[in-house]
């Protein structure tokens, strides 16, 4: 069946779980995954909790990057998705920094499919530690939804809300983050997506990205983010049940951030 691909900018609020202090100045290359079709993109890491509503395969993936080529700013993220009847569970773990200064987080997510709408919730625990200054932690909630308007167009909504938002008891407070996004499957090979992110007390950021697949085996991606005027590019390939991607982000002043992703995808049993 031939699919018609239409782009549709949907205003949905996509809230990503980020604390202000660990907010990345760079666009995450896979942040737009939330609006893609997991069925069409095997090996894709789920982007937000609502995307778990559509998963059909077990998948586990690890993403790592070394920001601006500095080991002290390494960042690692592990995601796991487990399909269940009518939806899926997910695990999201993040570590960034080094032994002297690091932030970490752990999230548990559930997504449910309700017809054309997938909705999800994710509960996160964040911790920030600095040698000599102690540590601070807080809990946050992500609520999201993804609507499949038609075969080509998806729109997503996510809100990140810090439940007890103080990172310490005096000044800092974790920010509410809202992201608006859409995904447009131009063809079986070509996917485009964009999102608007609004972090509390910070200007609006726009992130747009493209992905092209060659015979569903080899992938190329390209994106740009307005807040930091940075762009990224990368490529990946499918090897049996694994997908391996290599990416690079370029910040105009801080330099290159190389990254790598490995995802294991257990195909659905017939």
């Amino acid at each position: 069946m031939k699919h018609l691909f239409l782009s549709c900018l949907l205003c949905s609020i996509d809230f990503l779980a980020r604390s202000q202090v660990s907010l990345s100045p760079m666009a995450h290359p896979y942040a737009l995954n939330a609006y893609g079709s997991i069925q069409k993109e095997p090996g894709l890491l789920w982007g937000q909790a609502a995307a778990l509503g559509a998963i059909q395969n077990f998948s586990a993936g690890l993403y790592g990057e070394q920001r601006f080529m500095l080991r002290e700013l390494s960042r690692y993220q592990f995601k796991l998705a487990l399909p269940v009847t009518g939806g899926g569970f997910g695990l999201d773990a993040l570590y960034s920094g080094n032994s002297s200064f690091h932030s970490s987080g752990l999230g548990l997510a559930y997504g449910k499919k309700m017809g054309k709408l997938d909705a999800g919730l994710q509960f996160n625990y964040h911790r920030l530690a600095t040698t000599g200054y102690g540590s601070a932690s807080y809990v946050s909630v992500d609520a999201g939804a993804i609507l499949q308007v038609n075969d080509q167009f998806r729109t997503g909504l996510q809100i990140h809300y810090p439940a007890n938002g103080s990172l310490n008891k005096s000044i800092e407070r974790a920010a509410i983050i809202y992201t608006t996004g859409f995904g447009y499957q131009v063809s079986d090979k070509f996917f485009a997506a964009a999102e608007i992110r609004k972090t509390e007390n910070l200007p609006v950021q726009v992130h747009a990205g493209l992905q092209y697949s060659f015979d569903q085996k080899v992938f190329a991606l390209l994106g740009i983010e307005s807040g930091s005027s940075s762009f990224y590019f990368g490529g990946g390939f499918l090897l049996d049940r694994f997908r391996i991607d290599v990416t690079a982000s370029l910040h105009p002043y801080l330099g290159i951030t190389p990254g790598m992703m490995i995802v294991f995808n257990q195909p659905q049993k017939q």
Partner: protein
Amino acid sequence: MNRFLAILFSLVCSHLFAQEPPVQMQQQLEDLALTSELEDPEDDQLLQLLEQLKKDPININTAGEEQFRQIPILTDLQIDHILRYRKILGNLLSIYELQAVPHWDLRTIRMVLPNISAGSSENLKESFLSRLKGDQYILLRMSRVLERSKGYDTANSQHYLGDRNRLMFRYRYQYKDLLYFGLVGDKDAGEQFFRGAQAKGFDFYSFHFFARRLGIFRSLALGDYTINLGQGLIHWQSMGLGKNSEVMGVKRQAPVLMPYRSSGEFNFNRGVAAGFQVGRVESTVFFSHKKISGNLETDSLERFTSMLTSGYYRNELEIAGRNRVAHTSYGANIHYTGAGLRVGMNMVVNRFSIPFQKRAEPYTRYAFSGNQGFNSSVDFSYTYNYIHVFGEAAFDGDLNPAVLAGAMMSVHPKVDISLLYRHLAKDYRVLFGSAFTEGSLPVNEKGIYTGITIRPSDSWQFSAFADQSSFPWLKYRVNAPTRSHDYLVQWSYRPNKQFDIYARYRQENKPINDDPLAVINHPVPKSRQSLRVHAHSQLNAELAFRSRVELLWYDRKGNKEEGFLAYIEGFYQGSQKWKANLRLQFFETGGYNSRVYAYESDVLYSFSIPANFDSGLRYYCNLNWKPYKKMQFWLRWSQSVYTNKKELGSGLDQISGNRRSELKCQWLYIF
């Protein structure tokens, strides 16, 4: 039949909360709130009309021009074409046939479908006794802001004398569009109830009796009513919506005489009015006498310097100006309606028991002053094929002119164009006019407006308008003649009946005084740009979602502010007895200048369009319970939570803390 039911079903579902105005109208109301800064309007005539149309759809096979005009979405061009179509080809067999009527595109048909029917001709000659079989209801509404404001602190010399509850009572009877009567009582928060200045209970009462086609009367109004003349250059009391994405909506259209059934306390007439018809000539005469409130000043001459329109009489100061001025108004309209042609003459006289004279400021040099004002006008409209032209030329008592002329053209089945030119002399004086102008009154303005709508397919629509205005004389907060412009582009996409989305960009530049403390305070450019994306999705018969993101940029001589607003709203209808909706909204702006307005669902016959500024979250929940057919309950809870604020509001409305919560409940009984 199945297809019809499917269409009807989907349209009904897409209007689950159809007491809400259509999306386009919500935009218009938001723009109106921006210019008038009125967040919580009491005038619910529009909502009552929409609800009435839903319950009692207009029969497109018997309705005349005046009845079609009750549907706000329709333009005169579309009304004229359906009347001609019916005249040539006879009654429409079904609503499907509307697609064959010129200039009735699918989008328009979808929007008006809940308000129309295609029945057989009815016997229109109904006796008065048969009209007593109509519907009647009683409605009670109460609302309260939970946080106590400074105005209720009795240590304050100007504290509010009443309690914090806002109450409204309405009794209404209606038989089709032939007979209406009813009573409304309204009390604002802070006003007394059955004591003090409000010893008779509510602070405001309104009674109306209105009948159509009653003996020699084409229409008859006793009590409270509204008058709408021409294009609003001399007198217009219905809600007048301004520039918006419905670019063809440049013409004021409403019946000349309408009953007033709202709880708004100012913009109506009180007395008697009657309409007559002899052949193709219709005429309306009206007389009104009521008391209005004003700011009185007594030095060399007792006069009032402004009319108090808020309806608030909460403390001694506000009560002092209450109903101090007797206002008498009378006038007439006569018009001839022919084949596509309508020509009319209008006149209105306003008299005050105390002279009206604004405070002596440079910008009020040409404002109305004195005890009496007279305005007259000639208006016309004519439809030729796919062009509809209209206009009005008005004069005040000193023969200062105001002219407005416009056209709506369907140059192609997929392209509509609208034009409007206005030339309003700086010394033209009018009191209750409301035309399609940049200013609130049709004075001191020249401008040209152009709009275009393109429908490349049934799913897509592109709309745009450009408006250029100039103001020959000073205005409030503008100390020099200036120019302004206003542009808008909007893309709408509706791939299916369950989903629609629009993206809108608007830019306005309206000069305003720079610095009130400066020795020479001259106007500087003030730019306001906004980008909005709004979507609505009907998931199934029970669930619908709506979402919006809006960005705003404000710039006044380098003083920049940015605004952001985003919300998601869910609608749920579990059964015929239960409905609910919930909105969660985040906003962040640099200040009041970059405020963002967003229309909010409310209880039946009510709506609010709050200004969202500073930073915070706002949410509300509406519940509607219908235990049985004749009774309904509504409950609304709303709360705004501001970050980094310790006080909200100012003056007597100041609240300590960072939250403002409101509870509203309503009861309706039909008998």
